[in-house]
């Protein structure tokens, strides 16, 4: 029998118009166990109430980074310490 552990908390960060629409820049929480990939996470975010629904309405327009590195929607979220959500970058 393996002992069931409480899921680890992860830091979620939001930038640019995603931060404005979601109304939060940073939060810490434990993700539901059925979220495996970044795509799962984006779909879950869109169901977290009105502000998040609006912020995550177009998941294809959102970029994601795990622990300071860009990732694809197929990437696994397990073991992530920090996951960031933002629009395509516009620096330079």
């Amino acid at each position, binding site marked *: 029998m393996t002992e069931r552990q409480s899921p680890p908390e992860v830091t979620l960060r939001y*930038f640019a118009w995603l931060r404005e629409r979601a109304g939060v820049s940073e939060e810490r929480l434990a993700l539901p166990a059925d979220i495996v990939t970044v795509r799962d996470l984006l779909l879950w975010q869109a169901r977290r109430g009105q502000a998040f629904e609006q912020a995550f309405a177009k998941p294809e327009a959102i970029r994601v980074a795990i622990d*300071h*590195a860009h990732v694809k929607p197929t990437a696994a979220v397990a073991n992530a310490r920090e996951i960031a959500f933002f629009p395509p*970058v516009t*620096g*330079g």
Partner: protein
Amino acid sequence: MAVRVSSDDFDISEEMAKLSSGDTGIGGVALFVGKVRGDVKGQPLVSMTLEHYPGMTEAELGRIEAEACSRFKLSASLIVHRVGELKPGDNIVLVIACAPHRQDAFAGAEYLMDYLKTRAPFWKKETLGDGSAQWVDARESDEDAATAWSQTTK
């Protein structure tokens, strides 16, 4: 090899001297400065605010710089990017690539800029003359420029 994010302006000749002095193997220095344009599609721009992702910005710029140095024969390179509120005419970004020969310096500077524009986590918000503010949309042509590099062999 260095990257820096700062709200302060940069002095181009000072940065160039710091980067290239003492290395007489350098035969060419290519330098790019990005500036704030004073209009957006004919509308006057009041200010531009640059947001970034502290921690990831430095990590991503470091990766871009390391890749540029492995692709081209760069003796030294520098990326300085400003954040915060900027006015028309202000400097936004400085990229310097030093190499023994000009081809690598030119190509290195262009590569650094192309990848910076598509990978480094910066976002611009424009405030216009009528008081409205909007986030700048990413340009497909920037993505194409970076993709073109990935299709060329080293």
